[in-house]
């Protein structure tokens, strides 16, 4: 193993150095070594305490093995998380015969993660229900859509951490101090001007991600709702590697353009209504789609009520799936709107649409239509449409 640091070595406290040397066993030593190597690659001077962790790796993807092996090493060593830690959604497969072959180890993997002391919230929207950070909190999160929301909308601070690095954060309660944990890396590099009449936040995020790549954009003011910010950020973190975005006059670190650019001139791009509209699948493709999927990231209660009210009393022309945060499910179906959605034939689900629809079990290779920029990016054969189109297509508007 090559342990020669490429930057200056990180300054560890005596306690951290002891853990790295094996004082809490060989597995904890590797967790600490991982964070040190990770931090030193980016010149981090030290490890800092975090308020919470969020884990992305909730699916047992059967043809991947190494991550699951490392998790079971932690469980066998009796290691527990040191900070509140939440968990991404379930993949949503049931255990019909064909699925048993593919996903037989899903329950085993969930037991392993829960044995680490993780909160079994099973949601990517952890920041709205079970793991709510405050402005300025340092976090050791994975799940790109959650990281970008916590950074941008709440003003907490997390790098875009990978699977398993998230667990190393959780069990040490520490993160290397670099990147988006530091003030100087949270300014905007890119100004996105908006020439838009009808906002489609997910499409906007999809386009911004491609332009920004790994830079930090600041958008002109727009009165985005929390659900729009969620769906826009998730798309930016799919088509790009955006970790933080600002909206001038709306998000907490961007009182105005001047404050968030530090007064420097920055590159400018304009996104127009025509750009947004161009992302939508043709009418013909939309008509040919067999299933409409909402909720990537999962829908919050407010979002499900806002979308759901359009379907009350209607007859659906196509199957519609709502993927909800599990913590919002009971509250939703107890509302009049929730009941009306069920009566209209909407399937209200609590898992990850991307995982569940990847194999289209039960519906074959049929096309999925979605107003989620993230699902459109990741799911093979998923076409994009905005809310107005989808409501018309499904018969939700007369």
């Amino acid at each position, binding site marked *: 193993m*090559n342990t020669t640091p*490429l930057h200056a070595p990180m300054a560890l406290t005596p306690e951290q150095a002891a853990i790295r040397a094996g004082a809490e066993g060989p597995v904890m030593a590797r967790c600490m070594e991982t964070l040190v190597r990770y931090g030193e*690659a980016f010149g981090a001077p030290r490890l800092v305490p975090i308020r919470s962790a969020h884990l992305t790796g909730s699916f047992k*993807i059967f043809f991947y093995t190494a991550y699951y092996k490392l998790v079971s090493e932690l469980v066998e060593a009796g290691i527990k998380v040191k900070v509140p830690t939440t968990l991404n959604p379930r993949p949503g497969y049931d255990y019909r015969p064909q699925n048993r072959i593919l996903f037989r180890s899903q329950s085993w993997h969930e037991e392993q993660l829960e044995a680490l002391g993780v909160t079994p919230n099973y949601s990517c929207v952890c920041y709205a229900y079970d793991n709510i950070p405050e402005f300025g909190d340092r976090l050791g999160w994975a799940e790109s859509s959650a990281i970008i929301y916590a950074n941008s909308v709440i003003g907490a601070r997390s790098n875009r951490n*990978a699977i398993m690095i998230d667990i190393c954060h959780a069990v040490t309660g520490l993160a290397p101090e670099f990147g988006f944990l530091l003030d100087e890396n949270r300014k905007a590099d890119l100004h996105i001007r908006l020439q838009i009449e009808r906002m489609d936040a997910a499409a906007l995020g999809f386009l911004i991600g491609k332009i920004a790549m790994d830079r930090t954009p600041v958008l002109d003011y727009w009165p985005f709702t929390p659900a729009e910010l969620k769906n826009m950020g998730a798309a930016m973190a799919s088509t790009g590697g955006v970790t933080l975005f600002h909206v001038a006059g709306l998000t907490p670190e961007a009182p105005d353009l001047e404050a968030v650019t530090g007064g420097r001139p920055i590159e400018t791009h304009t996104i127009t209504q025509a750009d947004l509209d161009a992302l939508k699948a043709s009418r013909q493709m939309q008509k040919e789609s067999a299933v409409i999927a909402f909720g990537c990231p999962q829908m919050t209660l407010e979002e499900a009520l806002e979308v759901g009210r359009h379907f009350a009393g209607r007859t659906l022309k196509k199957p519609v799936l709502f993927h909800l945060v599990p913590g919002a499910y009971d509250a939703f179906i107890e509302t009049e709107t929730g009941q009306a959605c069920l009566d209209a034939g909407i399937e209200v689900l609590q898992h990850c649409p991307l995982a569940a629809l990847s194999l289209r079990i039960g519906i074959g290779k049929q096309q999925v239509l979605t107003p989620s920029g993230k699902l459109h990016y990741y799911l093979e054969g998923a076409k994009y449409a905005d809310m107005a189109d989808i409501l018309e297509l499904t018969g939700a508007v007369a």
Partner: protein
Amino acid sequence: MSALADTAAAAALKDILPVKVVVAGACDAPALVTRQPINFTAAMCKPPNILPSKRAEVRDAHHELFRQNVGGRALVFPACIGSTHTGLVLLDLVSLGKGPAALIVQSCDSLLISGVILSEVWLGPVIPIVEYPGEDLFDRIGTGDRLVLEPGSDRLHVYSGAPQ
């Protein structure tokens, strides 16, 4: 000059790039070049990747490398984008020896490095990650060129390869 470079000297040395080594290691492999950033999760968590021979095949239909196999190639690209499952993908590919032979990027981010460091710290195998921020990266290396990085070196040797 090492044996590695001696052999390579038989082919035409085209260029030597000064690089910043982010993860140390050695490589001698044909280049696969793309100007598009790569989303490893979108690329390699699809049903076709279930097949061992297609584990490292790009299955992201939004990407120009769609259906190309990155296994054993020195992958030259601007940056990594997208999901935090990137670590899962690279950890497996690197630790099983089925992944790219090296990653040559303009900008190395926290996700790209993670799977490779996890493989090295927990399981042993490692591939080099080097940065070359210049926009001329894509003019100086072409797909099919042979890329040689010797252990401990921060000079990436580019040998003309058969165009592909």
